[in-house]
Structure formats: C-alpha cells, structure tokens
C-alpha cells in the first residue's frame, strides 16, 4: 500500500499541475496542449501504464488487506472507542469514495479524450482535441461540481492518514523527522485536494 500510495501521491502532483492550466485565461489552449501531450508522448504513455497498474495494485491490495484484517477479528466489540484518528480507521470507505469518483472522472474525461467524439480546435495550425470544452461543459452542472468537492474531501482524509502511514510502513520513522513528515503530510493532504476542488468551483462560478 505504501509504495503504490506514494507513487500515486506523486501522480497527484503532476495531475494537479496540468489541471491548473484550466484556470489560465486563454480559452483552454494551454490545457488542450497539455492534454494532447499527455496522451501522445511515448514516455508519458509508458508511464501511464505503470500508473494504471499502480492503481490496480493499490486497490486490489486494499481489498485483500481488508478481508484479511476482518478475519483477524471474527467477533467485534459491542462498545468500541479505542484511540485512533477517524481517517485511519476508515481508509477503506475513503478509498471507495475516491474510487467511485475515479470511475466517473475517467468516464467523463479520460474515456472521452481517448475514444470519445471530442471536437477539435487548431492552435498555430495544429489540430488539438478540445478537452477544455468538455471540461467546461461538465463543470457547468452543479451536481458534478458538488460530486468533485465531496470526493476531494474524501481524498483529503485519505491522504491525511495515507501520507504519514506510507512512511511508517516503509520504516521511515525517526524522532528527528517525524514532525516534518507529519507536517508535510498534513499540508499536502489539505492543499492538493483543495486545489483540485477549486478548479470546478471556480469554473462553475465563472460561467454563472
């Protein structure tokens, strides 16, 4: 979980950098160029297969782990208040929220980008799929925006535990650096999902 999780965390950063292009006031040019690059560059393409695999391993492993851990306590407590953070106890639920979001998200954009009928635009003579228009249209719907915001809150809690937890699992725990890891982890967990969520909100507000 830890290794795949950390890889996914890196992916989040890359993805966020790209998505922030959406907010550029250029009618979507930067974003469309970025999107085209991401789907055509051979190196990125190879990496993307690695990413799909990572997602799958992360998810499958999570399922295996949950089943395994459930078996370790066949009879539960009637009354349970043992001290731990809410997020650490609910990684499965949080992960599921993120997964559902992911499916919708992939259907909406990733599938459309690869195989859907997307209109094209031309910049400097070159033809680009106008993914920006698709995004722009989607974020005009309030419920899609709401879904994104809720999902990002889920991601926030998922990362809040996941970030530090990954270091602990990898054995990277040292009194000297623990505070740093916790600080960076918390900041990452709050800022990254917040920025992701900001995009649909801003785009929705801009139109209305």
């Amino acid at each position, binding site marked *: 979980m830890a290794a795949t999780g950390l890889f996914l965390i890196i992916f989040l950063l890359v993805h966020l950098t790209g998505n922030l292009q959406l907010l550029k006031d250029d009618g979507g040019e930067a974003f469309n160029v970025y999107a085209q690059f991401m789907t055509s560059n051979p190196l990125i393409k190879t990496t993307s297969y690695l990413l799909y695999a990572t997602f799958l391993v992360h998810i499958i492993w999570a399922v295996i782990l949950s089943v395994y851990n459930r078996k370790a306590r066949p009879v539960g407590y009637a009354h349970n208040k043992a001290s731990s953070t809410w997020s650490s106890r609910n990684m499965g639920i949080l992960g599921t929220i993120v997964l559902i979001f992911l499916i919708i998200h992939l259907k909406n954009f990733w599938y459309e980008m690869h195989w859907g009928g997307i209109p094209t635009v031309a910049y400097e003579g070159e033809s680009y799929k106008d993914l920006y228009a698709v995004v722009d249209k989607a974020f005009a719907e309030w419920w899609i925006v709401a879904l994104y915001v809720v999902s990002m809150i889920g991601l926030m809690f998922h990362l809040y535990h996941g970030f*530090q937890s990954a*270091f602990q699992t990898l*054995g990277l725990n040292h009194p000297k650096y623990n505070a740093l890891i916790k600080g960076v982890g918390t900041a990452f967990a709050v800022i990254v999902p917040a920025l992701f969520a900001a995009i649909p909100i801003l785009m929705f507000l801009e139109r209305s």
Partner: protein
Amino acid sequence: MKITLKVWRQKNAADKGGFQTYQLDNVSPDMSFLEMFDVLNEELLSKGEDPIHFDHDCREGICGMCSMYINGKPHGPKQTTTCQLHMRSFHDGQTITVEPWRAKAFPVVKDLVVDRTSFDRIIQAGGYVSVNTGGVPDANEIPIPKKVADEAFDSATCIGCGACVAACKNASAMLFVSAKISQLAMLPQGKVERKTRAEQMIAQMDEEGFGACTNTGACSAECPKEIKLENIARMNREFYTAKAKSENV
C-alpha cells in the same frame, strides 16, 4: 458509588455467550477495578451463581495478565492496566461495559479470559538471543551507549498483555512483535541473529492469524507501557533488510 455493569458471559470456548447486567450499590472509589469484580464475585458465589472469570495475577501492573475491554477501551479509560484502574475514574451511576479481548488469535476461554499463547509462540520463533548458560563474555566487555540501552529498555518494558491487539481495528500484533524485535536489534548482543529473528517472528505472527498493520496508532495510544510506534517502523526496516539479504531463499 452505584455502578451498572454489563459483562460478557461465556461458559466456554464453544458457548455463544452474551451480556449480563449486574447492579452494584456499594462501590468505594478507592477500589481497584478488579477489586470491584471481587466484591461482585463474592456476591455471586454466595447466591450460588458462577462467578465471573477474568485473568489477573500480580495486581501491580507488571505481569500483563489482566485483560478487560472496558467501555470501549482495553484496560479502560486510563492508559494503564486494568488492575491499576481505580473506581474513582468512573462516576456515580455510570454503566460500564466489560468485554474480553477480541481477536482470532486470542480465542475466548471463559467469560473474560482469553488464550494468549499465540504471543508465546511468536517469542519462541526467535524473540531471544541464542546463548547457552555459561561461557559468555564479561558483562562490561561490550560497552553500550546509554541512549541505546535506554531505548532498548523502553521497548523491553512490554508486558505482553495484548492490549495492542485488542485496541487495533485489525487485531494486529505488530506493536508486541516489534517491541521485542526492536529491543534485540538495538543491542549488540541481539544483532547477530537480527535477520532470522525478524523473518521468523513475523512469519509466526502471520500464522497465528493476527491482522496486518494499517498504522492507526491505537496500539501505542492504548498501551499501558507506552511502547512507541517507532518500534513498528524499525521492525519494518528489519524485515525488508532481512528479506533482501537473508540466506533463506
């Protein structure tokens, strides 16, 4: 004080078990939690009822035998052992729920008594330094930095009560196992066998049916001896190194 107790009663391992409620009207705040049970048991005995069975021995917080899940926490609301918990930690009229440790690797024997021999088997898998009696070097032959000795001691204070397993949502024994692996990995005497020790103890832990760690930290937060989470990280390091470098194919 008046107390209402909801206690798990189970005749034996095969029995299904269930909660029973008891009313205690004359509880002194100076009583320990176990003494309150003694009083209740005396009452039950004189009525000809089977007393509530629970594990306990030293009653000074060191043998690790007492094991009650009280109001949703192992050893109750204070971070201590059940025997060191006193009734002044509760308020008059309170309802207290008492359950046994719950884990596949800790099957219930009777009432609140569970079988923790799985811990013994984990230690038998390698929780020691393989030296025979006699023929060892002088105690001061190998100096050990005070800081290392103190840290090893902190890990070695584990009393093997199983509160970590009971508290963990996954019934994982990582804190218990890591405390022993850490203690011996830090000391020069234990370093010789560190690779096989980590591999074997962890293999045994899995075999016993304990869950896997998801770093919720409940184990350490509820540990009456305050064994730190750092131990688990250290055990993970020991394990990866062992897996990468050990001679076992």
